[in-house]
């Protein structure tokens, strides 16, 4: 064991020219950009305006940029795969298996986690607060942390190109192949830590956006007045909150297997690899809808805007969205029909899967009828939308076909499957992403993208997609399986060649896309959008100037119209022009913060240390990250105040610009009848009444409480995954000790008493903080900490005893699941103690400030949740598994 763990010069692939040259080029480009930025003096601007920005619009743009870069990286992997197979008919091709296997694993991982996800999250981040009439997301700094954690994960995956290797197991590392025995290298570890770090970021996004949508809408923006995109964003983020903790838990179990010799999924000692496959798809299937639902939202906005009509069947669409959201959790088994579960199970999951197609079908028809009777303009976003409708219907059909178990028995894991999911992910998510980027680009930057090149990119993308993937459908029907480094079946060869030609067309599309960006930036003056509403849009974001000011809305819009979209905008614009002297109020916006980028720096170091077994680095970085958060919590001024004068000045300027350009554009205001039979929102009687949901953004305490509750729910889902593992493995003691042999009730009773009592004192501390009483608060919290520490000491003792008796987690799957579940709770208690200490110090030095009180409330919720989880562990693990 050296100071650098497993890391040595041999980790750099000097003997493999392809990754080495690729890495060299990438590093040269990055270095070049950095030197250019520093020499031109852009660094302070970048640091102040982007890297440390907590503005949701900036963060959204950064997500999209990250996504585009990663989509390109993943596309290069795709080119390598297709060219390898094109040259590997009865021949070895140019990529040896060890390299080819890394390429397809990296392709899947990067495209899903760092290409498609950030693309959708970026759009949601940018658009949702604008559409809701909010000034930012609920937790702006957390938003920045989330983005930088995602970037950190992307960085680690790409680092594996140069230092070490990437996983050779596919994008979902199925055990036992991914266990230490069969994958001894650092590849799987890179995968695990990169995904854990970016997964934490994604979870934070989920919590943040759910809270934003539920609690910070503008006054009058009731749920059924929200644009469709906000609805799909809500469904997506609910799915993130509910599904990502399962991924975290599952990958943590694999990590424990690999690092500490646990037996969750190993071949020996009772491990069960089928449990991994169940758990990973319990996350993996909702993940598919996490990706595609926001794209559905984009298309709803685009089709409605470019048809010049409100969305057809709005309520139906809302129901269909939530229907898909719920159903997506009930179908995971269709990813392994071929595991031999039997007719009943396969049939039930097959039918459940195809039922999701009902929700999707409803959406397709409603989009179709949105175009019916409209005035359809074929700008680039609309082209993507129509291309999507056709492509996605085909992809959906092949999906339902795969949901028919006997068909799946012959098509599972074949290129037909590959063609299917590329059909829905490219045709749905990527088309949606490009439509969204083209649609909202003028809003973000103040000028449009070049139309001709955009159309070229669309047609090349569409044609390239079909030329690439239709042959793969056919190859799948001919029995060709996926992930083949070489093959000798002559009938597959021509299909693989055509598919390779399609990739060339796709490359031309990507080139057009890049050229479009460059050309548009160079001609930005001619493409300038002065109206703030270049597409004649229908939702609130178009009521702001392009780009919107930092605070989005000088006055929070008051939403009272009958039609949720169009009328709202008209009214807002009307107010804007009509009211000569709006009554401005000073606006408080969050200050920029380097917390996100610094914290992600430490997260990268933690991950790198863990991958290469450089333990000291991880420990130092952990305390670095902790210190970063404490520093953030310690700051006195969290917000900057924009004075009335400044708000008025900014607003006056943009209103004048708008007035001028709108006059030039001469929009014919639609006459709004007072009795509109097709209204979607509230009835006339309710109009103007301020009831529930009309009150506007909630107070900070409520917002923070909601957010923390949602985070706790996701935490409990993670525990549920560990509980599930325990339920599956509790009888797999592999000849070792069983529950009867190891649990000691007296110690347990004491542990439980300590923890229950600590919850009581923690509650007292909260009570004291409400009354601003320092001494009782400190005392109560100190007692809580002592009780918690006592609990931990007893738990550690119990673990030490068990290990000493040869009943450690490496003994059997039962003990592995027991240790993991209980230690996960213990880890929470440990972090809670750290938090309590910080809270005591902060309150002592800073007094009962409002933000500190909010944190005390969260600490209370956290500590009580730990108690609830412990009660579940105590009764399920300790009491029920002991035979009476």
């Amino acid at each position, binding site marked *: 064991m050296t100071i650098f763990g497993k890391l040595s010069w041999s980790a750099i692939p000097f003997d493999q020219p392809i990754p080495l040259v690729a890495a060299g080029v990438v590093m040269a480009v990055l270095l070049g950009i950095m030197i250019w930025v520093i020499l031109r003096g852009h660094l302070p601007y970048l640091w102040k305006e982007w890297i440390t920005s907590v503005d949701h619009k900036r963060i959204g743009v950064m997500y999209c940029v990250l996504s585009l870069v990663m989509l390109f990286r993943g596309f290069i992997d795709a080119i390598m795969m297709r060219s390898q197979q094109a040259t590997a008919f009865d021949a070895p091709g140019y990529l040896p298996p*060890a390299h080819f296997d890394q390429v397809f694993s990296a392709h899947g991982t990067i495209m899903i986690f760092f290409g498609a996800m950030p693309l959708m999250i970026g759009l949601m981040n940018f658009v949702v607060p604008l559409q809701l009439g909010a000034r930012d997301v609920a937790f702006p700094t957390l938003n920045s942390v989330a983005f930088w954690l995602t970037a950190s994960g992307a960085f680690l995956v790409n680092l594996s190109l140069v230092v070490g290797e990437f996983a*050779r197991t596919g994008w979902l590392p*199925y055990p036992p192949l991914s266990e230490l025995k069969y994958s001894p290298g650092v590849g799987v570890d890179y995968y695990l830590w990169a995904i854990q770090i970016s997964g934490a970021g994604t979870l934070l996004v989920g919590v943040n956006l759910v809270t934003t949508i539920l609690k910070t809408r503008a006054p009058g923006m009731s749920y059924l007045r929200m644009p469709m995109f906000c609805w799909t964003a809500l469904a997506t983020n609910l799915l993130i909150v509910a599904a990502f903790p399962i991924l975290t838990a599952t990958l943590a179990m694999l990590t424990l297997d690999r690092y500490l010799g646990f037996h969750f999924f190993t071949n020996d000692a009772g491990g069960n690899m089928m449990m991994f496959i169940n758990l990973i798809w319990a996350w993996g299937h909702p993940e598919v809808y996490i990706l595609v639902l926001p794209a559905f939202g984009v298309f709803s906005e685009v089709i409605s805007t470019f048809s010049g009509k409100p969305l057809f*069947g709005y309520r139906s669409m809302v129901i269909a969205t939530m229907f898909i959201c719920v159903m997506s959790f009930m179908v995971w088994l269709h990813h392994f029909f071929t595991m031999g579960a039997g007719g009943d199970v396969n049939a039930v999951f097959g039918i459940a899967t195809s039922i999701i197609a009902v929700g999707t079908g409803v959406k397709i028809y409603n989009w179709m009828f949105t175009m019916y*009777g409209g005035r359809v303009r074929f700008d680039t976003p609309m082209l993507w939308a129509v291309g999507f409708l056709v492509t996605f*219907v085909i992809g959906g059909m092949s999906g339902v076909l795969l949901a*028919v178990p*006997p068909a799946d028995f012959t098509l599972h894991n074949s290129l037909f499957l590959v063609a299917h999911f590329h059909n829905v992910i490219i045709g749905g998510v990527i088309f949606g992403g490009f439509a969204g980027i083209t649609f909202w680009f003028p809003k973000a930057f103040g000028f449009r993208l070049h139309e001709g090149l955009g159309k070229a990119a669309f047609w090349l993308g569409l044609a390239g997609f*079909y030329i690439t993937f239709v042959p793969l459908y056919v190859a799948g*029907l001919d029995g060709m399986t996926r992930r083949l480094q070489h093959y000798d079946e002559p009938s597959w060869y021509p299909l693989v060649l055509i598919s390779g030609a399609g990739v060339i067309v796709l490359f031309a599309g990507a080139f057009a896309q890049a050229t479009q960006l460059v050309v548009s930036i160079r001609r930005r003056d001619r493409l300038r959008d002065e109206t703030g509403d270049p597409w004649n849009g229908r939702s609130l974001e178009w009521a702001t100037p392009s780009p919107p000011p930092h605070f989005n809305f000088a006055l929070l819009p008051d939403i009272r119209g009958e039609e949720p979209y169009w009328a709202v905008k008209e009214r807002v614009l009307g107010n804007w022009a009509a009211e000569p002297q709006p009554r401005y109020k000073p606006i408080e916006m969050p200050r920029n913060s380097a917390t996100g980028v610094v914290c992600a720096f430490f997260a990268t170091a933690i991950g790198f240390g863990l991958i290469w077994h450089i333990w000291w680095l991880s420990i130092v970085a952990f305390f670095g990250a902790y210190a970063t958060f404490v520093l953030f919590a310690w700051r006195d001024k969290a917000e900057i105040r924009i004075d009335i004068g400044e708000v008025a000045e900014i607003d006056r300027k943009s209103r004048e610009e708008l007035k001028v350009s709108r006059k030039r554009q001469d929009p014919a205001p639609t006459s709004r009848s007072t009795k509109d039979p097709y209204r979607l929102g509230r009835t006339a009687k309710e109009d103007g009444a301020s009831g529930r949901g009309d009150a506007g953004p909630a107070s900070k305490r409520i917002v923070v409480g909601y957010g923390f509750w949602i985070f706790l729910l996701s935490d409990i889902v993670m525990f549920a995954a560990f509980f599930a593992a325990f339920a599956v493995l509790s009888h797999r003691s592999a000849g070792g000790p069983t529950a009867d042999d190891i649990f000691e009730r007296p110690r347990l009773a004491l542990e439980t008493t300590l923890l229950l009592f600590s919850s009581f004192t923690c509650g007292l501390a909260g009570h004291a903080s409400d009354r601003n009483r320092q001494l009782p608060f400190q005392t109560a919290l100190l007692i809580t900490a002592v009780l918690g520490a006592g609990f931990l000491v007893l738990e550690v003792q119990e673990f030490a005893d068990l290990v000493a008796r040869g009943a450690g987690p490496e003994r059997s799957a039962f003990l592995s699941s027991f240790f993991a579940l209980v230690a996960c709770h213990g880890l929470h208690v440990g972090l809670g103690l750290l938090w309590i200490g910080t809270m005591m110090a902060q309150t002592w030095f800073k007094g009962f400030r409002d933000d500190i009180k909010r944190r005390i409330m969260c600490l209370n919720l956290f500590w009580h949740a730990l108690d609830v989880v412990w009660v579940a562990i105590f009764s399920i693990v300790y009491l029920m598994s002991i035979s009476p």
Partner: protein
Amino acid sequence: MLKNDELIRLALPGFRPPKPLVLPLRITGGFLIGAVLLTLSGCSKLAVLTPAGPAAAGNSAVLLNAVTVMLFVVTPTIFGCLFFAWWYRASNERAVRHPKFVFSGRIELLVWSLPFLTIVFLGGIIWIGSHQLDPAQPVASDKSPIEIQVVSLDWKWLFLYPQEGVATVNRLIIPTNVPVHFSLTSATVMNSFFVPRLGGMIAVMNGMVTHLNLMADHPGNFHGFSTQFSGDGFADMSFEVGAVSQDDFQTWLTTVRAGPARLDRAAYAQLLQPSTLRNPRQFGAIDGDLFSVITSQMISKAGP
């Protein structure tokens, strides 16, 4: 609300020649139909749709039925989308605009029930197909099935014929018109056993036994392989399947039994070493009940 006369106008529109803008849309549509037709016309040659046994025939019949059912809904939907987009283009002066047509109970009823009824119909296919074509379901035949045990290794397939007392690697010989019952397990990582022309695939996992029933209708050579990625040698994890007449099968058994190779612990340990195999191997005798030993994970621990 959509009125009757509007519906008629919708159904019988006097089209003008399409404008250049929308021409590409039609090309795409034509291309799609072409692709579907091409796929279907190529069916006669594609492995999955060219069954050589009852299980494969059942699977491919279900597949084609499901596609046909869905095409009835999907084709009009695609054309509807393209037609509406084209007909209501901003430049079409003949199109009647309904800018306020945003809800219709009748249409909502239709758009929910149409997919739902399709799925109900498809659900029937799924339910019956899943039960009749379950891999563990014996093939209907008056002959009693022969038993073959399959073990996936890194990266080769071991076939044990327990009743006949012979074993082969990467070559599977079966008699025609006799049901074959496979018991499958893995000595190492997960794989999936698949002979497209004979039937569906089944997962092969360590410490577990899965079951598959197949039968070959006629003599022939088929391609079999793993469909679950299992490591660097995965691409070479294929095997030949020879379906031979029952007489030829007996002759083959005699030849194998006469061979000198014996599958004992040493030979198995050698097979366990990760490697790919160019030429199939065969063993005239097997030591003990190797399959149960592998299933209970006793030998795999001695592996790599």
